[in-house]
């Protein structure tokens, strides 16, 4: 069987997720034993228009980018959203809390109206085209990326956790951040990162997005118990879940 042809693209993002692929180091060769990269601007010079799998990083922040993404979608059999910017808009969505004129003026001053500085409210890929698979995280967990790739090569649906980060946090024997009166988003955030942040003594800020059925209402109810306010919670939810429905429901 021919190796599937893979192209990697990026829109507005920090390219940290692609870097995680590079960070696989010698395992990159194993990746190449399963797929054939035909376009990957950050690491190789080739460019191509024909591919089976498109891996797309970044979010859509300009009208023109929507068209580019549609084109990629039309050429790819499988479209994979790589990382938080692609799967849910990522930190780029913080912009949507302001008007576009406002952000342009804030950053570029009187030049903000120049046409090439055009910007639109941030969108995740699936707000523009159909996404077949989401690889969560900001950045992605490259072990999970490798696992997903092997599953796909085996014809197996990868098991992406649909339980909260707390599960992995407990498996790693961490002391819960709430014991230190910090707001941790672990209880509503999808696991799969091996609870990296709480394990390093920092709260989870939700970079993998919500689990399917996040109990945001419960999160709201516990704030008082920990001497925090709704504003504190919202401020943190905004980082990666800005303007997502469940956040909106937190009144």
């Amino acid at each position, binding site marked *: 069987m021919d190796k599937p042809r893979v192209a990697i693209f990026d829109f507005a993002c920090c390219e940290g997720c692609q870097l995680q692929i590079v*960070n696989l180091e010698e395992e990159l060769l194993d990746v190449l034993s399963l797929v054939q990269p035909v376009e990957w601007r950050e690491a190789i010079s080739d460019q191509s228009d024909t591919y089976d799998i498109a891996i797309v990083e970044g979010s859509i922040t300009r009208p023109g980018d929507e068209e580019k993404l549609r084109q990629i979608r039309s050429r790819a059999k499988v479209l994979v959203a790589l990382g938080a910017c692609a799967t849910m808009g990522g930190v780029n969505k913080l912009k949507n809390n302001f008007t576009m004129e406002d952000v342009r003026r804030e950053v570029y001053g009187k030049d903000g109206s120049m046409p090439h500085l055009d910007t639109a409210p941030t969108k995740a890929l699936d707000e523009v085209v159909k996404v077949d698979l989401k690889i969560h995280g900001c950045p992605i967990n490259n072990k999970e990326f490798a696992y997903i790739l092997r599953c796909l090569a085996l014809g197996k649906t990868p098991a992406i956790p649909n339980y909260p980060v707390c599960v992995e946090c407990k498996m790693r024997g961490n002391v819960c951040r709430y014991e230190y009166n910090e707001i941790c988003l672990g209880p509503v955030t999808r696991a799969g990162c091996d609870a990296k942040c709480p394990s390093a*003594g920092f709260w989870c800020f939700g970079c993998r997005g919500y689990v399917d059925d996040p109990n945001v209402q419960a999160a709201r109810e516990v704030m008082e118990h920990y001497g925090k306010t709704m504003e504190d919670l919202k401020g943190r939810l905004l980082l990666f879940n800005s303007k997502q429905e469940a956040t909106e429901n937190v009144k």
Partner: protein
Amino acid sequence: MSKTIDIHVHHITRVEGHGNIVLRASDGRIEKLEWQVPEAPRFFEAMVRGRSFEDIQTIVSRICGICSVTHSFSCIKAIEDAMGIVVSEQTDKIRMLLHYSEQLESHSLHVGYLVAPDLLGQKSVVPLVKSHPDVVKTVIKLHRTGNQWMEAIGGRMTHPVTIKPGGFASLPTEQYLRELKKTLEGIVPDLKALAEVVLSLAPKLPAFDRDTEYVALVDPTHYSFYHGGIGSTDTKDLTPVRKFESVVNEYVTAQSTAKWCKWHRDAFAVGSLARFNLNADLLLPLAAATAKKLGLKKGCCNPYMNNVAQVVESVQVVEHSLQIIDELLTKGIQPEVPKVQPREGEGAGAVEAPRGILFHRYAFDKKGHCIRANCCIPTNQNHANIQKDFEALVPQIIGRPQEEIRLLLEMLVRAYDPCISCSTHYLDVKFV
């Protein structure tokens, strides 16, 4: 015979972010020559408004996946400046240690994965695995060491989480520091091997000098990445970080979504070569010996030599880290829990990213919510200089075949190790 050259490199590859090279010439006459940055602007300075000082690092780390540690430090230093926080000596040392991990990671990624293919005549690192397995092995080892070191102290490989205003969310253990020391001692031979490779390829680096103003952090006590004031090869005085806007003088051009900068001249350069030109006297012995061996001398103004300076710096950061680890172990790691009371204020912070000096400034209200921000990234500071280099270089090489011109221009851009994804800029900062 009339010859037309039409080079349009749409989205140059093997760099972070999107940049275009446009050159149109006929009969040796240059009609258009532009370095363009069409990267989608991301408006970080606008987005952080209203966010708590506790969450700023989490946000601005995402400006760049390659220098997320540096962004985190510039940000945390600015917050600490604004809130009058002074960190302990231990915190300061561990921060330098974490910062060095990123220098090693980024430099080895850049030299090994992104530039080496050019010098070895390949399109990417992949074919090098077969043609130059030893080189690839060395590069992988260095790169992995940098990454694992970053993850151990920063909590993650990219977008660190342990860096907090006032200190660390968790501290490395003494046992880890002992292990790290062994690891770093273990890669010294690999660094030497990398230097040998670069030495053998150095003749392939184009000979192209252009008198340039270089700007970097300068601290009298050591070859600085993390401390000090802003120095320039055009002046003896150091400018305090708080006044960085008077150094970068950002302006908008139609060519670019990123802002351009100038100081004493119409452009200046930052990065490894700039740091070297300003701090070479403070290199530790092994790094100094490496520079000598590679023929890198203070005052060098060949932009392609930036990659050589990166190799010298890789040695420097490992050498300095070994010193820092010894100092930390002598005193033992003391438990510290950062506690910060937010207060109203404004502050600036700067550290050296692998690709040059990086400035952040924030203003906060009483509750510690951000009211204004400004970030000025190194790649932006280099954009104008890249354009000036183009303008000086192209007339020298215009007679060569189009493909060769194209490669030399691409190599020039890559030599700067640009990290264009960090498109964040602010003009006309007025803080009240």
